[in-house]
């Protein structure tokens, strides 16, 4: 299954996102943010790429400081 990651500009918001996504039964895995991805929080949330739109919606509707959603393509992290 292809994976994507959500990264945030605030540690608090990353944890808030983790809580909200779990409440919506979206399977996530907290990981250390890849160095190549730019954001100010060191925590990233990994999830199945098919949930990208849902994750974005939840983050936007809750006004979270989402730095972006990224996917690995040819060893490069590309913003979706």
């Amino acid at each position, binding site marked *: 299954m292809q994976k994507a990651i959500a990264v945030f*500009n*605030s*540690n*608090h918001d990353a*944890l808030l996102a983790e809580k909200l996504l779990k409440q919506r039964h979206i399977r996530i895995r907290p990981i250390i*943010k890849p160095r190549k991805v730019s954001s*100010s*929080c060191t*925590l990233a949330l990994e999830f199945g790429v098919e949930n990208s739109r849902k994750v974005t919606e939840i983050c936007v509707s809750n006004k979270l400081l989402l730095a972006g959603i990224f996917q690995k393509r040819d060893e490069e992290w590309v913003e979706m």
Partner: protein
Amino acid sequence: MEVYFDNAATSYPKPPSVYEAINFTLQHVGANPGRGEHSLSQSANRIIFKARETIAEFFNIPNSRNIVFTSNGTEAINLALKGFLKPGDHGIISSMEHNSVVRPLNSLKNDGVNVTIVQCDKEGKLNPDYVFKEIKKNTRLIVLTHASNVTGTILPVEEIGEIAAKKGIPLLVDAAQTAGTIPIDVLRNNISLLACPGHKSLLGPQGTGFLYICEGFNLKPLIEGGTGSNSELSEQPDFLPDRFQSGTLNTPGIAGLKAGIEFINKKSIQTIKEHEDMLSKTFINKLKEINRVRIYGPLSIKEKTAVVSFNIKGKDSADIATALDEKYQIMVRVGLHCSPHAHKTIGTFPDGTIRVSFSIFNTVHEIDYFIDSLKVILN
């Protein structure tokens, strides 16, 4: 028997779960929250996050990111006052305020901030109309203690909140004496800034407190530095809570504060208030029977928190407190309780009063012991 009747200064003892949470955090989650990529740092971070969520739910705060941890209530008040008021601004306070409000405002006066102190009556009660009358064009903030730390008098936060909302003036509430015993709803009470110590009725450890800053409220941080975020920038982050949360947090203390609030939730704030009311009522009724006693503040339980101030005519309050402590291991607080304006209001300045304050862990048996001991001392 050791009796601790100084809970208005700091509550003691704490629930066992508070000690356990602090100990567990110190021993097993010792990393720096938000400062490392590793799992232990994230575990510490989750403790901080969950504590914010617990506080938010307790005070009906819409977003937990608007909670900034401080080392006590005084620091929270300083951040609110010094971070907000500017030269030429006008602020209104009551005459029952603690020095945690009076002193920073006095310092701001030197920078050109004007302050009006609205007089309360002899029982420490505040007429909201008097506050309304003092509002000027440049009034930028109303500051109100929710209850006096001297008399326990509950001040009309709800009515003042309505006035503040109507006039578009932010309200800063000092909830040092009420957070944990009287329900506070920041939305319903139109509170823009809420300053709370964690170590009083919220039953957390000393060294904890917080300031709630409502959404969109522009404060200047007093302390800047590392936040674990935006590390590539020299500027302080502009988002909450990081804007006001520089330096390593007191994670064990915050874990204890969270456990304190969870204890209150489990027991229910109403049960705690009812127990403390029962203690205050019992104490006041027994104290009234002693000759030459004068009790200050309202006697009606509905109008006060579990704080009772009194004096014995012709006796030095310090002598009585010393005798209570030395001979009977009963701990009370005498003097001005850092609230000279409140003592001036009730007519006990500069001598002060003997203050007795209860918590959920005090008993009627302790009150009986206090009254019997006091009678022996007076005879």
